């Protein structure tokens, strides 16, 4: 950046003229790039977490209830699971959203499906993380 552009104050937008960020198209573009970024950030976080989770859960489902309680009661496991679940449900929400936007053409049906997905994923994430914390803090 040169000195001229940093020292000169930005000229105020003309009265009545919409600033680029205020137009619906620009908001949508910003929303889309945010979606894109979060989808990839959650994907990056999920690489190590998923590798751990698959091996851990395949062990855990064969064990007794007492063993499952003990496993969830370990602070490291509860913390890693919380992060994993938050990232996984979020990543699922972002991915399903794209699928719906691609295949559900009717505007009303699309809006309703997107809302339903948001509600289902939020509730499921809440139940999953809530269950982990319930066990972790009770033990």
């Amino acid at each position: 950046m040169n000195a001229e552009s940093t020292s000169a104050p930005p000229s105020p937008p003309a009265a009545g003229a919409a600033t680029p960020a205020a137009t619906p198209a620009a908001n949508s573009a910003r929303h889309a790039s945010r979606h894109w970024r979060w989808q990839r950030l959650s994907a990056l976080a999920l690489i190590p977490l998923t590798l751990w989770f698959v091996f851990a859960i395949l062990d855990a489902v064969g064990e007794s209830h007492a063993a499952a309680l003990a496993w969830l009661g370990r602070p490291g496991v509860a913390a890693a699971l919380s992060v994993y679940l938050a990232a996984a449900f979020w990543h699922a929400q972002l991915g399903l959203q794209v699928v719906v936007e691609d295949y559900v053409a009717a505007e009303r049906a699309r809006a309703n499906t997107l809302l339903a997905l948001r509600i289902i994923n939020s509730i499921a994430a809440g139940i999953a993380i809530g269950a982990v914390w319930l066990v972790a803090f009770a033990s």
Partner: protein
Amino acid sequence: MSAASRPLSPHLQIYRPQLTSVLSILHRGSGIILALGALLVAAWLAAVAAGPAAYLAAHGLLNSWAGKTLLFLWTLCTFYHLCNGVRHLVWDAGYGFGLPAAYASGKIALGAAVALTVLAWLL
């Protein structure tokens, strides 16, 4: 021909399936399955928190043949989506767009997914 009955791009039915296009739709398919699987993960965690009776029911289902088959397919979907997801991240970083590279990375993702699945079920 009315606008409503015109064929829609990309005319999927006239293309011969290729490794690249099949892997692409499998990424989406496995993603949808994993979103459903996440609901089962939530149910299992809820069963652990709910107590021994709920846990026993979940344990019985998951350790039946149907349950184990489901878990195996879930493992395969997870590792496929993970490996192909890494392939997508590499593309996002700007690498591997050439046709030979796309085929090679596709085969690597598929192989890695199968290898990880076998490893997870043998260990």
